[in-house]
């Protein structure tokens, strides 16, 4: 380290990098290697989300309650992350709630454009404090959706439910 000579503050530099256009890649002006990943997963839903999804299949929204702080958690978990204790009893919650925040989305997951917008929202479930989950608002005009709007779950037909978050088709405004 002693051999080092102190440097003067450096001058503004020319940054390195070769920017390409999409055509360069598409028309093979530059070589590319294409690859399709084949990775697949089957995640064990476990105790808490397993029971939550079973509840949805039965047309119920379930939460867990912490015996120590009294907080109700939905989506449920087997622990209270604030008290670091095992959760206490399971609570059946109403299928109504309040829009905490929302968006009017014109793009799909793959960034393609949607003609009819999707309205994702965070729904605070009634009697669960401010706890809630992400879902979609339906049966509503984009311009009528607002924060604080009361909503109710619209369930899929019982025979079509599969123990999934999509067993609730969407939440609709309570008018």
């Amino acid at each position, binding site marked *: *380290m002693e051999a*080092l*000579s*102190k*440097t003067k*503050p*450096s*001058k*503004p*530099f*020319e*940054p*390195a*990098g*070769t*920017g*390409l*256009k999409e055509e*360069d890649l598409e028309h093979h002006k*530059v070589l590319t290697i294409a*690859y399709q*990943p084949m990775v697949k*997963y089957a*995640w064990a*839903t476990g105790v808490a*989300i397993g029971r*939550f*999804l079973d509840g949805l299949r039965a047309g119920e929204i379930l939460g867990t309650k912490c015996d120590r702080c009294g907080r109700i*958690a*939905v*989506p449920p*978990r087997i622990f209270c*992350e604030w008290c670091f204790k095992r959760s206490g009893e399971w609570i059946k919650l109403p299928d109504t709630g309040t829009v*905490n*925040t*929302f*968006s*009017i*989305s*014109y*793009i*799909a*997951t*793959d*960034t393609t454009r949607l003609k009819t917008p*999707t309205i*994702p*929202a*965070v729904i605070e479930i009634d009697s669960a404090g*401010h*706890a*809630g*989950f*992400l*879902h*979609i608002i339906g049966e509503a005009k984009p311009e009528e959706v607002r*924060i604080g709007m009361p909503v109710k779950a619209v369930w899929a037909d019982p025979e079509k439910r599969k123990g*999934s*978050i*999509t067993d609730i088709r969407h939440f609709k405004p309570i008018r």
Partner: protein
Amino acid sequence: MLIKKRVAVVGAGMTKFMRRAQETGKELAFEAARQALDSAGMRIQDVDSVALGSAPDAFDGVHMKGEYLLDGAGAWQKPYSRNFVGGGTGVFSAIHGWWHVASGLFDTCLVVAEEKMSSCLPHPQTAFLTIFDNMIERPLGPNLIWIFALEMQRYMQKHKIPKEQIAQVAVKNKRNALDHPSAQIPRAATLQDIMNSEVLAWPVQRLDISPVSDGACAVLLASEDVARKITDSPVWIDGVGWNLDTTYWTNRDLYFPRYVANAARMAYDMAGITNPRKQIDFAEPYDPFDYKELHHMEGLLLCRKGEAPKLTAEGVTERDGKLPICPSGGLLGVGNPIAAAGLMKVCELFWQLRGEAGKRQVAGDPRTAVAQAWGDLMQIGTVVVMHA
């Protein structure tokens, strides 16, 4: 607080930020690392350890991306590890490097952050589906813009902020970036351009968002005794902070980033900063979306909650204002190769505090500045306070 070793930044490097780079991720990492070493007059043989930051493997398309990148980052036969805190990774990389040196275990640490998002098709956005909860969110078909839109809506509603005030951030940062040699699309935009751009997920419009990019950045860290041998103008890392909030983002109020505030308090405490509004000369908060800069100014306690849009409207945050914010041009202007964009903010502090920022130099001989990044499910704040 007693820290074992005082740590300085003694060199910095950065590639161009590009929509599509011909360079592999390794090559990008090399270019940034080489430049950081050159700027300090150091050889890789003099570097004791290497810390790397890079965001999801699903961008570069390589499992264990940290392993893949390590030779480009100069880590051959060295102690090397990769940190990962989502979008907060870039600034966190400097913190990761900081504890290598501050611990007394190493005299020097080369910190490299890389992202090559263009490998991911049909669009890097698609990979973001996989950041959502695999059991109860992914089946709803979410995309990344949603969470920003949901947070932005909550923030706007809480403080009754008009969209125009938010768009002003994009105007400022895109203008600032005209002076940055690494800028991806150096192009100014008017308020009207932003407001008229395509609505993606209201209230988010296309020009509210930083572009997708490839790029890399690097900084070289050294302990005080070594730093003084390397340079007459080391820039000190006086404070570091990071804080991760609960994963259950739908159980929190998103209008204020409390985790950023926690991280900022941690860093300020360490740096002995008691009044950030007075003691911070300029800041590089994380600005992947225009409202985020405002959100983060508030999280960094540089103003009151809901006050950031007003300061922006008054010109306080311009490069020649009282509290310049993102003089680099930020992610909105320079580009957003996730981890590299965060470390760019640390590079900018280094250059500004040494008076080497050229046309971007903020006036008034700045001495103390803060860089911050954010990430995960609106969940982590990473903060570095630097001092010349």
